[in-house]
């Protein structure tokens, strides 16, 4: 491919220094993810898959090696620049939904937009996104704790989309959901991917991973297997 990858890791190593020990969470990982891919990162707990997600999500920076997000070398960015990169390029979907409890559903979706534009939304875009994920106008003034887990995850998806990110990062997106709502959420992610969104998802669940076109298996901080799934 001649196209630049949206995520590019070059020999990325992440070492956590503990008081008595050093843990190598990522060991010399190189990886390229292109626009429009749907990647599942799989592995046992402690395999380094969450660490990889934190690196890609710019919540942490590699100890050594290079990481480029949409062409930006994250090692050159300061904390504010990394924060802005998260805000503008990345949409997060967490296992525990992680909506802001003090804000209602509409405000939760609007929040990243406010961070970016520094003003309240007047275009009705958050409402449109909520409608798209299947939450009509009736519930948008509710607080997150007043709705079910599946509904919260839909709000989280709407929030992840509001700043039109380059990458959507999902950390065990169905881990806290029953099988029926899990399917609904995954179908939604699949639709987003079909619309051209790049999705990187960490999961240890095979059924969830099956939605991805590309599966990367991690163990002990290294990529041990890569599969392409053309059926999904």
């Amino acid at each position, binding site marked *: 491919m001649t196209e630049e990858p949206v995520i590019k890791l070059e020999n990325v190593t992440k070492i956590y220094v503990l008081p008595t020990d050093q843990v190598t969470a990522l060991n010399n990982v190189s990886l390229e993810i292109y626009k429009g891919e749907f990647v599942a990162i799989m592995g046992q707990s402690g395999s380094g898959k969450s660490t990889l997600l934190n690196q890609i999500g710019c919540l942490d920076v590699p100890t050594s090696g290079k990481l480029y997000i949409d062409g930006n070398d994250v090692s050159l960015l300061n904390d*504010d620049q990394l924060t802005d990169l*998260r805000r503008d390029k990345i949409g997060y979907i967490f296992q525990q939904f992680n909506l802001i*409890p003090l804000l209602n559903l509409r405000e939760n979706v609007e929040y990243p937009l406010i961070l970016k534009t520094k003003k309240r939304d007047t275009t009705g875009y958050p409402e449109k996104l909520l409608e798209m994920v299947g939450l009509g106008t009736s519930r948008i003034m509710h607080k997150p704790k007043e709705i079910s887990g599946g509904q919260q995850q839909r709000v989280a998806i709407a929030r992840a989309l509001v700043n039109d990110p380059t990458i959507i990062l999902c950390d065990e997106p169905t881990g806290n959901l029953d099988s029926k709502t899990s399917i609904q959420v995954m179908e939604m992610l699949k639709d987003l991917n079909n619309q051209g969104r790049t999705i990187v998802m960490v999961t240890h669940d095979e059924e969830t991973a099956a939605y991805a076109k590309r599966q990367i298996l991690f163990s002990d901080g290294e990529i041990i297997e890569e599969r392409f799934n053309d059926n999904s």
Partner: protein
Amino acid sequence: MIILDDIFFELSVRNVRLHFLRSLLAAIGIVIGVVAITSIGILGANMTQSVTADLSANGNVIMLSPQGGGFFSDDDDYISQKQLAKIEKTVGTENLVIAIYSDSDKITVGSEEGRASIYALDMDVLKNLVEVETGDYPTSLTSVVVGPSLAERYKLKVGSRIKIGDKDKEDPKQTTVRVSGILKERGMSMDLSSDNAIITMEKWFTNRYGDEGKYDQVNIVVADINAIDDLVDKLDHALNYRKDEVRIMDSGSLIESISATIGIIIAFMSAIGAISLLVAAVSIFNVMLMSVTERIKEIGILRSIGTRRSEIRRMFLYESAILGIIGSTLGAVFSLIGSFLLTYLMLNTTEYFFTMQSLIQIPYGILIGIVICVISGVYPAWKASNMDPIEALRAD
């Protein structure tokens, strides 16, 4: 309103509302602190103003008293006829020189007994100083004028009789005088404190107490207030050239020293009040730390989806500022009421309450309260903003 529209301000307001009771309790500390310093400040401003106003009316008086004697003069100290002549020569005729004999003695009016100050001075000088409200100035040796406060206390009228002295004593023995007039009220005055005194003719006084020509106090009412300093210097030169014989004080410097004393007392009281503000600061600090600890997860979420450190900091500083504004505003209301009552009880007047110097203490108090709250929130806010977002997200 940029702040009110700020999403971080909104989050702070909601968090305060969510923990309303806790926030209110923390704010009570600030309420008490603000009430303490503001009330003391207002009381101080009222005291200073009322004392200054009383004294300023007499800002043109120079007081001379025998060195070592002063207000509590003992009999050996006096201002002599010779010194008085020097004084009169120095100040000239345009300034009023009041040479006063003073003593205090037992008095009996009807069946009531007590003590009173007895002054004697030249009747022409007296006429220059104070008018009679009713009756007339003394014309005979045994007639006196009395101050209005004394007259009220002993229910004296023109024609009333006062027995002066102890009836069991031989020298000087008890004598009776007649009230010929009651003086006008003068309030606090430097030249002659006549409100509570019996004023007799000089002759009567020296006949009874002796010491003719030995004055206890000489006061000078200066015609031109700007000439005071100059006159004080001249008097000092004339009287104390060889040896300090006469203590010279002008009412202006007395006012300054009284004001300075009040200032010190108020500063000391404010320092005690400030301790309550310190306690309040600790409680705000504690509540803010609690707020940060409870919201670690939320901070993690906010950070991970693109909230800057400075924005997290702002959110917590807003929160402590809100506590400060609530506490200080309540404090201002209470101190307005409290200090009004306090001023009335302590000074018996609220004449100076609604003045600039007095009421300016309220915005000062509010400002100090808010600033203290915000300062108390700095460390918790800093702590919140510097959390590792990954660690914070992992918290429950």
